[in-house]
């Protein structure tokens, strides 16, 4: 058992980037305000001073341009970490990501792979209103050719980047702004984390709560509350939104016979839709209750705090939904 250290999600992310820059000369970080400003959320603070401006590059506000340049640099032998400040600006380089990064390998008949890593912070919180509160993981998870990761834990914040940089294909990493200041314990020697598997964050026998990102924490909290009422919930962190590790959640559902799918993205056509469909297709005869989903309410996210809170599933919503499934 290795020694545990207390660390914030922000520090974990930074440690991952710092390690990548240290270990491989071909790695460089590029993004808006990643250098002199220290990162919009202070994730890369101090890295410019440590590694110099060739390795930590501030770029102009031209997401299509610099994401495309990151893709190009990866074609020509570099290992770029491209930071799109937030997913809210993620539609500007969408053409680059979908039409170039995700297609190149296929269009070239397997000749040209695109080993680029694109980080985006995302999630709701802090009353940022409609244009700055997007949960667009499902948009990216829709695209074949991309690997889409959701960083729901501190260990993953520390270790997913390392493995993403080793991946030969484009990897999109979603980080959660609202978790940046959150502290948690991770092993002092925490290292690379796999980027292909979903993980059981809490074992239980009565129901499978399948979620990702910030939903992991809400679901864990809900599971504790449910335990007080004698309900033993299993919590699955999908981690990899594409390609989905269906084996993990199917096994869980086969065990518990019930599933609640939780995410902040708008309710229709989100990641849960896909998870639900796969449960129907592959675990139907093991279901003892209809699969239920808790997703974001389908409105542009409003500014006032109480309405903002009401637009995405909260801990109590998860608790109530589980009870309703188990004790109809």
């Amino acid at each position, binding site marked *: 058992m290795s020694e545990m250290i207390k660390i914030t999600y922000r520090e974990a992310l930074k440690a991952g980037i710092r390690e990548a820059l240290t270990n491989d000369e071909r790695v460089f970080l590029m993004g808006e305000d990643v250098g002199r400003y220290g990162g919009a959320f202070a994730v890369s603070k101090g890295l410019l001073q440590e590694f110099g401006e060739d390795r930590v590059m501030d770029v102009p506000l031209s997401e299509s341009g610099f994401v495309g340049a990151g893709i190009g640099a990866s074609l020509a032998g570099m290992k770029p970490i491209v930071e799109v400040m937030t997913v809210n600006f993620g539609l500007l380089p969408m053409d680059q990501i979908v039409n170039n990064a995700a297609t190149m390998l296929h269009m070239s008949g397997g000749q040209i792979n695109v080993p680029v890593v694109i980080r985006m912070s995302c999630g709701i919180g802090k009353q940022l209103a409609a244009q700055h509160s997007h949960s667009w993981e499902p948009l990216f998870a829709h695209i074949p050719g991309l690997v889409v990761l959701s960083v729901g834990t501190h260990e993953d914040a520390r270790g997913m980047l390392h493995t993403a940089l080793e991946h030969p294909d484009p990897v999109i990493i979603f980080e959660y702004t609202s978790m940046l200041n959150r502290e948690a314990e991770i092993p002092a020697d925490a290292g690379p984390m796999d980027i292909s598997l979903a993980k059981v964050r809490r074992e239980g026998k009565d129901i499978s709560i399948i979620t990702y990102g910030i939903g992991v924490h809400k679901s864990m909290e809900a599971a504790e509350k449910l335990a007080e009422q004698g309900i033993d919930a299993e919590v699955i962190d999908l981690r990899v939104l594409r390609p989905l590790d269906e084996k993990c959640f199917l096994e869980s559902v086969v065990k518990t*016979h019930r599933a609640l799918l939780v995410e902040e993205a708008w309710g229709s056509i989100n990641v849960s839709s896909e998870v639900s469909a796969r449960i129907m297709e592959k675990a139907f005869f*093991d279901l003892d209750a209809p699969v239920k989903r808790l997703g974001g309410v389908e409105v542009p996210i409003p500014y006032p705090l109480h309405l903002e809170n009401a637009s995405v599933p909260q801990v109590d919503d998860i608790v109530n939904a589980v009870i309703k499934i188990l004790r*109809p």
Partner: protein
Amino acid sequence: MTDFKMPSLGADMEAGTLVEWRKKPGDLLQPGDIIAEVDTQKGLIEIEVFEGGILDKYLIEVGDKVPVGTPMASLRPEGTTGVPAKEVKEQVHPIQEKEKPEEAQATEHSEKVNIPSKEKLSEEKSFKDKPSEETSSEEKLSEEKHRIKISPLARTIAEKNRLDLSGITGTGEGGAIIKADVEKAMAAKKEEKHEETLEKKIEEQVPERPVKEQKTTEPAAAGISPQESIRKAVAAAMSLSNREIPHYYLEKRIDMLKALTWLKETNQQREISARLMPAVLFIKAVAKAIDSAPALNAVWENGLQLKNEINIGFVVSLRSGGILVPAIKNADLKSTDEIMISLNDIIPRARAMRLRSSELSESTITLTSLGENGADKVFGVIYPPQVAIVGFGSIIDEPVVQKGMLAFRPVVHVTLAGDHRATDGLTGSRFLEALNNHLQNPETL
């Protein structure tokens, strides 16, 4: 001789209309020469030939709209002469042939394509289909009402165990049968089998045993409605009781303030469907009080036979008259929540007369509770071969002397009717005293 065909200029081009010939029969064609002009949905396009030769004959006329790939003209190699006129005549293009009769009917004969419009066809079809679709969906709906709602998992288990679903009450969403219901039914089935063989033995000894007649899962005797047969069974059982069992009666008034307060508190934290009724406390308290008077949990069959299991028969009055007394098995081992679940299960099934015979035959003591707005006291008739019945009147407010002061308290009058062949008043009294103690400590129930 080669044919020059309507070229395909895009995946979305299906046909072209010949607007003008740029070359005439006998002309020498070089690769790249424009042979004709063709109208498409994107406008006029000049079409070129990729092979040289002499234009021998037109195969379609100006104004014809033909699909891609249709021969438009025949070409012969340079230096050859034309085919004999006779041969040419016979060379009629199939598409034109097809088109002729239609053209004759058409008033305007210009833009006519020989491709049936798929969209139109399907559109007409779907309109036609609509009414019939509606009826079929209505049918489906009515079918739906008869369908047994069951979870996929429960269905799989039921099918594996060849379990009849019709007798199972679902406790899942919308009354769907879930795994737990099926498992319960299976357990019951097992017991039933066991019980039935046992019953048969007893039956042989006691041929007039009335319980047998109450079995609702078996079809009633010809010409007799279920209600009638139940009435008859109750009549037979009660007559037997009155004839054979020497009853003694005891009564105790029990203060219900603590029990009701506790109920109120616990129910406040519960969903409506999970709230407890006072009857749950009565059942649990009776089950626990039997500890102090085990002889009351027994049957009188060739002498007193004590029972290990405490199965409390709960009297359910049927709206159509008559009573059924399904058992709450192992009530001493069940939590109040579980007893509530059992009640929710058996009461509606009793009213629907969907009880299993084992549920009706395995009681070891009977409890009758009049509920709200009923009589203040009830003196029961023992259900043979049992030896005791506990009666709970309505909970009512009565003046009570407490610490020398007069106070109004909710109380319940509890009676015990015992079989004097089996027990005496002292046993009964001990039982009622224990019952009182348990109801004063509701949180421990």
